[in-house]
């Protein structure tokens, strides 16, 4: 299917566990982004990537790790989940940073 997909859609985990959220896009867009969305904060950028093997920190990168070995995939890993990382996570892609971003459906993560 064309577009941008995220998996899983829902995840419950425990404090201290490692969790990986997956993001896949079929447009061959250069840029990919990870955001978290919390009430009162809107969308906050965690990490972004300009191309395969190029990643950069956003506004709230602490506690997260990303990689981009292939253009179409951009996984986000929480190495040791904390309760403060309970949130809805959105992945997005675009041709350039100033172009329209296409968002995935989101992953709702709960850390107990």
């Amino acid at each position, binding site marked *: 299917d064309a577009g941008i997909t995220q998996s899983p859609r829902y995840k419950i985990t425990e404090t201290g566990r490692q969790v990986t959220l997956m993001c896949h896009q079929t447009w061959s867009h250069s840029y990919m*982004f990870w*955001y978290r969305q919390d009430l*009162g*904060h*809107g*969308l*906050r*950028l965690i990490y*972004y990537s300009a191309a395969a093997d190029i990643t950069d920190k*956003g*506004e709230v990168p602490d506690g997260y790790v990303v990689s981009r070995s292939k253009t179409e995939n951009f996984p986000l890993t929480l190495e040791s989940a904390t309760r403060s990382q309970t949130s809805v996570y*959105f992945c*997005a892609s*675009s041709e350039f*940073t*100033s172009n*329209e*971003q296409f*968002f*995935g*459906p*989101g992953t709702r993560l709960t850390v107990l």
Partner: protein
Amino acid sequence: TQLLEQSPQFLSIQEGENLTVYCNSSSVFSSLQWYRQEPGEGPVLLVTVVTGGEVKKLKRLTFQFGDARKDSSLHITAAQPGDTGLYLCAEGNQFYFGTGTSLTVIP
């Protein structure tokens, strides 16, 4: 400190009413985007404004970019229940989004 402040945070109106939501900053932007997000989905781009003073219309939605390119407004005429959602503004590179305005249009 929030780079982009949106107001109001919540808005509940009757079908047919008009409304305006705002996106303000102390920074100057090369462009600004408006997105709408429906419950359980990701945001979808509505418009990009680039030039200071620019006005863009999308059916019943009118977007304006401030002359100094620090602020923007979204005006909806004769709101409909289908307009319900979270409206987000974002600075040009989309590294920063506003806090959003949650709009509910009551039939």
